[in-house]
């Protein structure tokens, strides 16, 4: 248990029962709740940027889309799970992480191999890499809980957060959490060309207003635990568009409104050698895209609604027998997409994931293997008089995983191979060529093979503890889905075409020192990532670094606390990136470094005041080409915890 990450140790009793434990932190990187609340980062994606090997694609500002991508495999290969339930967006496969408040989080982890806990859902086992968000589990020893936070900062950014809980009995605890945020997002930016000529402007139509209401019911009874939660998330935002030359003002007026309603339940039963988890979820997503709200005559007014429904059931069981541990898991899901896009009929995707896993442990050695079988079918649904229901594709794919690990003393070593794939998204299948095309292209799933060698070292002596981790990895992405013009230069289609070879290393360390009134935590992550575009040997750009992947990235976080005071700093550096595989000056995005700081003080044990400054050096940079990031900004917050 020593090397178990807090996320895993919080993973109820099952982790301790079924997992052999020692190699727990190999290829896993975690932020604990203390780090989450002490770091100057304001949101979940801001925190994830600090993890080795993680790239956040950020379109700028609070309202800008933020997606996560681990080891340059592509954001659609990264599964994002909240309390063990996958967050899906079947339409474009990208999860906007900006909507999850950091205040609710117990821990945030990035897992590259598979979790050491045997009790995993089949979709957790199937993902190439996973980001796991774990929300706070209530403290049953207290009759009630209350926490509130108000924040205000630059660019008209304000938020309010409230979480209130009541213990109903020894077994039940009820909690309600909600938040509201708004930002004008009209931050200034500087755009500079290679000759030094610059233009300064303010981002327009970059505002966001959102609220979230989420009640939860927790039950604890002996070996049984249940978490039932629901929620309504609403947001309305402007889509400011890229910074390009335009006549007059930057005038994109497109808007996006999202509503997400969900109910989910996670039940667990944990005994000495046996544990069981059952998960169910229903989610309804409405995405409303309004193009050209100003009725600008140069663009076409469009008001489109995409409605997506998802039903999900997952059962997993783990059993330990001597030196062996076994687990079986099955996930079934139904996705339905309908829209008022003219000519686009409803889409249905049914998928079944079946997984089996076995682990053998002997002393400090263990071997782990799993196989996930994915069976899924896509249907294009009938529309009266126009089209009939057709099964457009069926996929059957086994995804193996094998690992061996050895943990002598304070060291841990692991070697693994993981094969995984992702299905083409509905965007890739249907939003192609002529908008009316209802016949899906026969796109194959994109597959990834990951080979990794991980090493870890942990030691502690009295007041000091140290965690070191290193990974060397090689991955191959095959049948990558890329867009190319099809029938001619006017019509584009998605094809299985690309091939990417990637290799690199990540290093991470975590030092803690606690002595009397003084506490210190220093984290540092480094990653080297070479991802080569091997698609077309005839291309002059064959072997070029793929778009948006920095060769070097460094992040560091320092938290110092003394009595009631806490001072923290977060640092990020990314080397040169290119917007395409053509690694030439015209496609270059400059390297950048950013520093965030936060000072906070706790008063009367229940109140915390904090003052934070993000990007204090006022670095002007872009993560996505033509989407400038905000310069320096400040915010202050008051938080109450009862």
């Amino acid at each position, binding site marked *: 248990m020593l090397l178990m990450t807090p996320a895993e140790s919080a993973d109820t009793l099952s982790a301790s029962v079924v997992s052999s434990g020692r190699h727990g932190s190999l290829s896993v990187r975690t932020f604990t709740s203390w780090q989450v609340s002490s770091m100057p980062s304001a949101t979940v994606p801001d925190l994830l940027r600090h993890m080795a090997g993680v790239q956040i694609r950020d379109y700028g500002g609070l309202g800008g889309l933020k997606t996560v991508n681990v080891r340059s495999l592509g954001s659609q290969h990264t599964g994002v799970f909240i309390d063990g339930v996958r967050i899906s967006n079947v339409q474009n496969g990208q999860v906007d992480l900006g909507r999850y408040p950091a205040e609710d989080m117990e821990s945030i982890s990035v897992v590259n191999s598979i979790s050491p806990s045997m009790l995993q859902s089949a979709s957790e086992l199937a993902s190439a890499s996973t980001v796991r968000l774990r929300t706070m589990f209530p403290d049953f020893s207290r009759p009630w809980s209350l926490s509130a936070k108000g924040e205000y900062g630059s660019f008209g950014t304000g938020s309010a957060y409230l979480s209130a809980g009541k213990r109903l009995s020894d077994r039940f605890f009820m909690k309600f959490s909600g938040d509201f945020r708004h930002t004008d997002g009209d931050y200034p930016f500087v755009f500079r060309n290679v000759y030094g000529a610059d233009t300064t402007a303010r981002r327009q139509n970059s505002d966001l207003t959102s609220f979230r209401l989420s009640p939860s019911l927790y039950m604890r009874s002996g070996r049984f635990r249940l978490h039932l939660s629901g929620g309504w998330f609403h947001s309305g935002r402007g889509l400011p568009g890229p910074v390009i030359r335009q006549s007059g003002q930057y005038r994109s007026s497109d808007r996006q409104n999202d509503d997400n309603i969900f109910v989910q339940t996670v039940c667990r039963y944990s005994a000495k050698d046996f544990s069981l988890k059952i998960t169910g979820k229903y989610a309804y997503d409405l995405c409303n895209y309004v193009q050209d709200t100003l009725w600008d005559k140069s663009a076409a007014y469009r008001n489109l609604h995409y409605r997506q429904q998802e039903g999900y059931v997952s059962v997993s069981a783990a059993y330990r027998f001597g030196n062996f541990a076994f687990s079986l898991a099955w996930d079934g899901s139904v996705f339905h997409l309908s829209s008022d896009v003219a000519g686009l009929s409803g889409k249905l995707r049914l998928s079944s994931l079946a997984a089996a896993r076995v682990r053998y442990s002997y002393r400090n050695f263990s071997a782990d293997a799993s196989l996930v079988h994915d069976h899924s079918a896509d249907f294009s649904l009938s529309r009266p008089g126009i089209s009939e229901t057709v099964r457009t594709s069926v996929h059957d794919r086994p995804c193996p995983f094998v690992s061996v690990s050895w943990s002598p003393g304070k060291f841990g070593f692991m070697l693994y191979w993981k094969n995984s794939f992702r299905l083409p998204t509905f965007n890739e299948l249907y939003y192609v060529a002529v908008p009316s095309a209802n016949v899906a292209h026969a796109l194959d799933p994109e597959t990834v093979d990951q080979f990794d060698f991980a090493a870890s070292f942990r030691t502690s002596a009295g007041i000091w503890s140290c965690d070191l981790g290193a990974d060397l990895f090689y991955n191959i992405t095959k049948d990558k889905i890329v867009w190319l013009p099809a029938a001619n*230069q006017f019509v584009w289609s998605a094809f299985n075409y690309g091939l990417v070879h990637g290799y690199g290393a990540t290093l991470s360390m975590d030092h803690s020192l606690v002595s009397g009134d003084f506490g210190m935590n220093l984290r540092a992550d480094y990653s080297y990532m070479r991802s080569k575009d091997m698609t077309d040997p005839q291309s002059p750009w064959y072997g070029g670094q793929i778009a948006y992947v920095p060769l070097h990235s460094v992040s560091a976080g320092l938290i110092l606390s003394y009595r009631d005071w806490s001072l923290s700093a977060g640092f990020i550096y990314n080397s040169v990136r290119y917007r395409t595989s053509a690694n030439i000056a015209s496609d270059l995005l400059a390297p950048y470094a950013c520093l965030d700081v936060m000072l906070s003080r706790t008063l009367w044990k229940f109140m915390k005041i904090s003052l934070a400054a993000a990007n204090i050096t006022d670095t002007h940079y872009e993560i996505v080409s033509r989407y400038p990031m905000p310069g320096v900004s400040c915010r202050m917050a008051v938080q109450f915890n009862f």
Partner: protein
Amino acid sequence: MHPAFRKAGPVSMFLTAVLAAAVACEPVRVEEQDNRIPAVQSEVIGFYLLNEGTMGANNATLDYADLRNGEYVSGFFSKQNPDMPLSLGDVGNDILLAGDCLAIALHGSGIVEIADARTAEHLAEIPVPGCRYLAEDGGSLYVTSYAEGGSLWKISLEDFSIVSKIGTGHDPEQLHIHDGFIYVLNSGGMQLDSGTGQTAYEHTVTVVDMSDFSVVRTDDVGFRNLYKVLCGGDYEYMTSRGDYMNESGAVFTYDRTSGEAVMIASVAVSNWCEYDGTVYTQATVYDENWNQTVSLGRLCGKDYVEDDFADLSSAGIKACYGLDVNPATGDFVLTDAGDYVTPGAVHYFSADGSLLWSHRAGVCPSRIVWIYED
């Protein structure tokens, strides 16, 4: 030293060594290239090549091939206008030489850029939302635009002001001026039928009387999704792109007086150019697996013949995107858009079809204008 540090030291050093080895292994390659090209002496001293760029990337660029001095200048417009932070703009759709001016239609930016024809120095910027193609006549510039349901704009080349505009069919593409009339080809490629969701392609040519700038006729030519127009010899040739599914693209002749269209070949000609009364064409043909082959041809009167007038195999063209012919020498220029995202290439062939030189171009290199000596 704290005992724990002593233990951690060797581990850190090992990790650092591994890291250093990895970093040293393979740095990212940054391409540099030679900008010399073989000189070609004639009264044509060079050509501008417009690179469209990709939508939303603001990477339209203008290259200049100096044939007289044998030098290829990439990003010529940016170099000549270093004080313009956003440079040329987004999606360069068409370029035209109008007297001493160079006019460039930037579709994504909604701007017609006017620059000096010799130096490419910025002169004026005319806001024309959704601008597509350009034509010039009698001191005026005519611009087709997707805006306002399809429109034709008239711009004065004296003071670069918008003189007038009229409606055409939906999504007009190229236009041709002949004897006091403007012929505008309508595509309708962006129009959706609200019922079926099918694209409501246009099949009409809008005829505009230049004397009072009004629509005099709308000719139904029967071919859908019209695209390009070119005058060669006695004929006015037009292309259509079809619906990309059931109806293939076609080349046909158009009778300016009767408005009648006569099919020549059902070949989706993407690019063409005229030299000495012959129209040279390039079409991209797809098989059932979407593998593309470039096919070259000629239009002679009312016939289309396949003719490999340039040795494509020597150039290794992946996605042919532009074709033009040197009006002084008959040399051909073919451009390659590659993967449409990364910079493409320009290939210069002598009149007999042999490859003289190749050079890297910008993203989606498409249209060329030839510059004569003074």
